[in-house]
């Protein structure tokens, strides 16, 4: 006889008393003694709504259910009674690891699963990290991740949180990839404020977040980075758009999205217009632009970067970002080649990783380098040397076709280095603060002219440098405060069953 069958028989009609007590306490919002718990719970499970069924399944099973399971259970329970809810909970528990402890949590719950699990050094992770770092310092928040099976959320330990907030790329974080089966702790948000400051591409996690946003009587909030997989799908690998769009389907039930630029807000507003055809209001959307804090490079970093990456006597043109087609680096190579042929003297340095469909870029760069052009591509550069390069460059170039924010534009300008960038969207927003030449990135000739002007027109270069240096700085403290205010502090109001 397998232990599995014994468990099922025993649990079929007997929801664990301690769990019933947790559930009853959450439903009543007062301490309910274990002895009274079953009676109290069953009163709530008489013709329950989806929200009560969601909470009951979550607490009794230690697994966050998907929306279909909740609705199906609610319907069946109407005719079969509370027993049916216990039975479904037992089935959910049986399918996975059972939780050792359940904690029903109200107040702000911040879901930072990716940051806790691995560190990729991406722009998204930087935003999540800088924001969370400030929130955990001044505010009462619960930082949570997910169990490895993506069936339930778990609290991050103090040590895990500290590691998540560490800077820089690295290996998967020790101790966070596998969660212990024994002593599995589960967090269930209820009447909470659930904040998602990262992008979710795991289907199982997304479906559970959707049900959470619909049924947990919580206020939902997220940071919106961009809608590239929806609106520029031709620039994304095939497996990304469906998962991203599933995440958007979950976010239909959130209350607020803080986008990282006005351009991204425009994208999310367009999506929200689409959503309204499904009879849902969709979240409120507000642009809270990202912060950029320049790092002043040390003398040593400057010397090291100059020795390694600069060609003596040649001005440096810097291009930062991964080499996916959306970043338009082939246009940069083309513009550079036109200028070299016309006798302009400069070196060109790309800093960024290879990405989906970057082969054309790699080939073309190899052709030009092989023909003796001073061009190079560097992978995985440290932040320390990157900031030194921003300072050393004559100018940077960032003619992206679609960006949520355009961090390299902001970083270059914060370093006092002029930029050639795109004349629309988030890059235009950043450029409007001064120090940039904006061009139509689909027009190679325009990129070539702007780059040529920055290389040879010293008066122009000087003026743009002055503008860049005079720009108002925006700090991460400001960003984190504004994001908190919008996503958490003022994100209040009635939460209906269908959110």
């Amino acid at each position, binding site marked *: 006889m397998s232990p599995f069958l014994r468990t099922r028989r025993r649990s079929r009609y007997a929801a664990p008393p301690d769990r019933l007590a947790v559930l009853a306490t959450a439903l009543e919002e007062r301490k309910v003694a274990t002895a009274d718990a079953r009676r109290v719970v069953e009163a709530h499970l008489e013709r329950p709504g989806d929200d009560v069924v969601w909470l009951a399944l979550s607490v009794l099973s230690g697994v966050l259910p998907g929306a279909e399971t909740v*609705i199906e259970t609610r319907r069946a329970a109407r*005719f079969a009674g509370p027993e049916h809810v216990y039975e479904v909970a037992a089935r959910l528990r049986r399918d996975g690891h059972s939780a050792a402890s359940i904690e029903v949590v109200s107040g702000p719950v911040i879901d930072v699963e990716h940051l806790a699990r691995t560190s990729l050094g991406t722009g998204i992770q930087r935003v999540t990290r800088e924001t969370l770092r400030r929130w955990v310092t001044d505010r009462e928040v619960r930082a949570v991740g997910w169990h490895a099976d993506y069936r339930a959320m778990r609290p991050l330990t103090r040590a895990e949180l500290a590691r998540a907030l560490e800077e820089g790329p690295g290996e998967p974080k020790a101790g966070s990839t596998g969660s212990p089966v024994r002593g599995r702790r589960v967090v269930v948000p209820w009447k909470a404020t659930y904040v998602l400051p990262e992008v979710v591409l795991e289907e199982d996690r997304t479906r559970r977040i959707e049900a959470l946003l619909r049924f947990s009587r919580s206020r939902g909030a997220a940071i919106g980075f961009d809608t590239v997989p929806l609106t520029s799908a*031709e620039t994304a690998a095939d497996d990304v758009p469906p998962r991203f*769009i599933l995440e958007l389907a979950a976010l239909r039930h959130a209350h607020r999205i803080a986008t990282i630029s006005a351009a*991204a807000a*425009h994208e999310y507003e367009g999506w929200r217009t689409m959503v309204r055809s*499904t009879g849902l209001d969709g979240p409120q959307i507000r642009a809270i632009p990202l912060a950029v804090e320049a790092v002043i490079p040390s003398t040593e970093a400057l010397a090291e970067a100059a020795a390694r990456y600069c060609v003596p006597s040649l001005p440096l043109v810097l291009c930062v970002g991964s080499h996916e087609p959306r970043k338009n680096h082939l246009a940069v190579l083309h513009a550079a080649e036109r200028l070299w042929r016309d006798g302009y003297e400069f070196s060109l340095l790309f800093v960024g990783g290879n990405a989906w469909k970057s082969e*054309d870029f790699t080939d073309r760069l190899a052709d030009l380098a092989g023909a003796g052009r001073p061009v190079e591509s560097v992978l995985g550069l440290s932040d320390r040397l990157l900031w030194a390069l921003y300072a050393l460059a004559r100018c940077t170039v960032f003619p992206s076709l679609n960006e949520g924010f355009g961090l390299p534009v902001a970083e270059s300008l914060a370093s006092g280095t002029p930029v050639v960038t795109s004349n629309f*969207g988030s890059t235009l927003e950043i450029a409007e603060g001064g120090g940039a030449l904006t061009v139509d990135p689909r027009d190679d000739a325009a990129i070539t002219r702007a780059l040529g002007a920055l290389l040879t027109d010293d008066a122009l270069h000087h003026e743009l440098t002055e503008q860049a240096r005079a720009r108002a700085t925006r700090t991460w403290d400001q960003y984190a405060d504004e994001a908190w205010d919008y996503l958490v502090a003022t994100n209040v109001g009635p939460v209906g069953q*269908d959110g």
Partner: protein
Amino acid sequence: MAEAVSWGATADPAHVDEVRRTAERGQVATLAQRLRSTALVLLADVPAQDADAARDAAALLPLLAGHVRTAPASDLWLVLTAVVGAYPDASELARIRRAVELATDRIDVELLLLEHARRVSLRRDLPPMEMEVVTDAVVVETDFSARNDKQTGIQRVTRRVCSLWSERHPLVLVAWAPGHVGHRRLTARETHRVLRHGEPWSDDDAAGDAPPRLCVPWRSTLVLTEVPPSDGAMALSALAESSGTSVVAVGYDAIPVTGIDMRPLGDATTFVRYLSVLKHARTVAAISASSAAEFRGFSSALAAQGLAGPDVVEVQLATEVASVQPAEVGARPVVLCLGSHEPHKNHLALLHVAEALWRDGLDFELHFVGGPGWDMRAYEQAVDHLVRDGRPLVDHGVLPDDRMWSLAAAATVTVFPSLHEGFGLPVVESLACGTPVITTDYGSTREVAGSGGCLLVDPRDDAQLEDALRRALTDDALLGRLRAEAATFRQRPWKAYADELWDVLVEPRGEQ
């Protein structure tokens, strides 16, 4: 020259040389033909045709190579299509455009065009095809409707529109050529399937059909009444962006984006590729106000990438429900639900509500008409359970239109609580048969319900659905009023739809 064009021949161990020679001859001949048809469109002076295909190609290529050095990007698009025998995608077009710009002379351009063709032929299977350039034409892509007999909503629109347009305007009907290299004209059989669907076809299926040739629109209007096959989408996106031909489309719904939680995730992959085409389209004619809002939302989001996006116009769809005799039914009231069994159609809610009312002692039959959809498990389980309990529930599966409509005419009420519809045809079908409908209180179903005869409910709220169905089955005064309203329902005729669609999609072509 002959050596330069010897790409793509597949070797047969038994007759390697001969097969290669034949293949090369075929490829050289089709290349020469494609270059010539392109030269006739792009060049003022085209030399007389040389009887030898290789020599003819060798005479034409330098002229076209010289031309693209100074011509607009659209001309390069056409020349690449001719040289390769396939539409280019955006990255190919950009790469060659830049290479042409850096080329030192005309010969350089010739070589890079040939090298490009060779590279593409290593990657893709390119059948040797001739090519026809259609200029200033109205070209309608009817790929699925031409190849398949299936007739669901989209094929019905495609066929009715093409058929009505073809009575008054010259049209070029195209499908995708093998390997999705580009468009081709329809065969006689396919044309019959699109223009005269349902009428008998007596000819031999392949009689008189020449081997397929590319049919390339040039300074034309390309109309998409279907969602194009995914494999053609990237080429179509480049065509819409760079070829000088305007792409216009009928927009149905964006369920793969807004309701993907209830659809297979793969739907989203296909749909976002379609959106990559639409972002460069001139106009989208959406089938309802609700559908227009979806496409407008997408279009407005494109500002973030510096694109204007398509103009989105509502052109409300037509329907054609014939009046039929009500079916013979028993004494019990009939509740009817039309539509395939997809999760987003929300049939599980109806089954639940019906069970609740049966348990309360209401006496009625529940009938479903519709084909299997994606993920039927929960639906089948619920039906099995109710049938086992002896509930009067009938699933007819797919029925011919007239039988479905006669059932609709006989029903007390139809229920269509879909979570999302581009149009909501079953609501129209029911009202046109004089039968009241309980349906969703937002989106396109709400639009159709505007003329009366409907009870509107929030489809995510079982209690509202249950209340509405109970009232329909028990409140005779209410039912009488709804029936009277339904009796005044007027359908929009196909001709009105086709005419308006032409005006919106095709007519502005002179204004570019």
